[in-house]
């Protein structure tokens, strides 16, 4: 099965029943399979007029109670940015699958890239939290799509699944578990009386229990600054409280949200930090290095945002050198550098020609890093 197809099966098993989207390479298989399967589950597939409408319509459907998703790629993802911010601010859970392609602009439409690392984090205007998950296999396309819906529903926030052309089109075996073995999280419902109900009122967990339209509760959902009632409220304190709470509900739950994978020996001289498809090259590089007697490991960031600060710091603290290979000119590496209070040499390895970084390229970087470590050590004595 293809990665893109696995996303659709994941969405359906997570309970998604609404898709709104606009076809774009290399994500279109997600639309095609959704169009075929959703009616079989009493769901609706809608091909919208553009990506602005696509994200808007799934936000609407989610507000009406349907778990909803869309899929796109770079240019379409750019068009979705305004309403991505709307969903974050109004706390409407959606899942957005972005199968990254080479950019900027139309560029190489059929080739992979990881150029949207920062667009996924900061593409919409204003301060905002976001959750971004990064699959590296067909199995994870399925697993992480379910997880994306679970996190979206639990924290009432859009979750982005950030794949790339290779992961989206790659075919591998997929194991689909029994439905009753899956953990499926649904949004919490209010227990307050209908009279005087305030949809954006929160308890300690900072997560509002907003029911969908169609219950006895009256719900005001707003893209403008709003108080607990959901009605517009422009007081400075209201604006400040709202955005700080949105951040808190994610930051205070990083232990639940952030997932990483460690690969190779626990302690290593050289550590690689990688995302998505590139981590597959990195895994091969780790194995090849082991065969050569070199000490190399990999930290794979399954959750790309919020960033795995603690785990990355641990790597920076222990390793003699860190390599960050990515299919862009160095986006994730900036985050690694941000956390580098240990003066650990950090090497960026970039590729932006539409091909993926090979294990050989990483091996060369490992050797370069080790040589420099050796040389610095020799100089120091």
């Amino acid at each position, binding site marked *: 099965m293809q990665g893109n197809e696995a996303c659709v099966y994941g969405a359906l098993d997570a309970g998604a029943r609404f898709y709104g989207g606009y076809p774009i390479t290399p994500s279109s298989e997600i639309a095609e399979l959704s169009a075929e399967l959703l009616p079989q589950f009493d769901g609706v597939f809608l091909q919208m007029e553009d990506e602005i409408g696509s994200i808007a319509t799934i936000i609407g459907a989610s507000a009406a109670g349907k778990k909803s998703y869309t899929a796109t790629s770079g240019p379409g993802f750019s068009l979705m940015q305004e309403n991505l911010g709307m969903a974050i601010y109004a706390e409407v859970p959606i899942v957005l699958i972005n199968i990254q392609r080479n950019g900027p602009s139309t560029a190489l439409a059929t080739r992979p890239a990881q150029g949207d690392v920062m667009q996924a984090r900061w593409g919409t205007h204003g301060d905002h939290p976001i959750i971004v998950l990064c699959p590296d296999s067909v199995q994870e396309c399925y697993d992480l799509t379910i997880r994306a819906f679970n996190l979206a529903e639990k924290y009432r926030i859009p979750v982005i699944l950030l794949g790339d052309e290779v992961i989206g089109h790659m075919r591998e075996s997929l194991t689909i578990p029994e439905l009753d073995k899956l953990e499926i999280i649904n949004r919490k419902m209010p227990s307050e009386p209908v009279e005087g109900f305030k949809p954006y009122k929160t308890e300690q967990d900072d997560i509002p229990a907003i029911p969908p339209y169609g219950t006895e509760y009256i719900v005001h959902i707003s893209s403008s600054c709003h108080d607990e009632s959901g009605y517009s409220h422009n007081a400075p304190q209201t604006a400040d409280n709202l955005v700080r709470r949105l951040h808190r509900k994610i930051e205070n739950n990083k232990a639940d949200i952030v997932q990483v994978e460690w690969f190779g020996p626990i302690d290593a001289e050289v550590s690689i930090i990688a995302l998505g498809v590139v981590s*597959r090259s990195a895994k091969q590089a780790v194995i090849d290095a082991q065969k050569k007697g070199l000490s190399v490991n990999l930290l794979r960031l399954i959750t790309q945002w919020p960033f795995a600060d603690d785990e990355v710091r641990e790597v920076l603290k222990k390793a003699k050198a860190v390599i960050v290979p990515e299919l862009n000119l160095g986006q994730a590496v900036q985050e690694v550098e941000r956390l580098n209070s240990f003066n650990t040499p950090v090497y960026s390895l970039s590729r932006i020609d539409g091909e993926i970084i090979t294990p050989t390229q990483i091996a060369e970087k490992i050797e370069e890093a080790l040589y420099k470590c050796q040389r610095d050590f020799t100089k120091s004595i």
Partner: protein
Amino acid sequence: MAEKTWQIVLAGTGGQGLVLGGVTLAKAAVLEGKNAVQTQTYGIQSRGGYSQSEVIISDEDIYFPKCDRPDLVLALSQQGYDRYRGIVSDECIILYDQDTVKNNNRLHDIGYPFSAKIMDLGNEKAINSLFLGSVLKLCPVVAKKSLAKVLENSLPAKILVVNLKALDLGYEEIS
């Protein structure tokens, strides 16, 4: 053979069934309990542009999903041949269509008249079964009967016969 990781590249032109061929091969491997990863590289043309399909088959976990050390490259177009001729190892077989590709006399070049043979068979769409037969003869990545099984599971009866015939022909005529 147990520990061997095979890398097969199918290169040619969009519409030649290269992706389907790769998927068929990968499915046969999965049927035998092996791991398989299939990827593709294609342009913006659906028909007629350069296209390639890559398959990795192994008993072990497959990490890097692309063929960086191919065992065999099938070249059904000149572009496919030229793209790989300079970058593959000397041991890598390049199996090319001698009707459409001008080869460069590499040691492990093997020509076969795929275009002419498929015309003889009378169904151009069976070309992927033809080349898969030849690929299997040169690289025993899966048993031919596994591949035939995949075809039986996926093809309608009326075209299955010609595909099985193409598979056998491709297998028998290559040495």
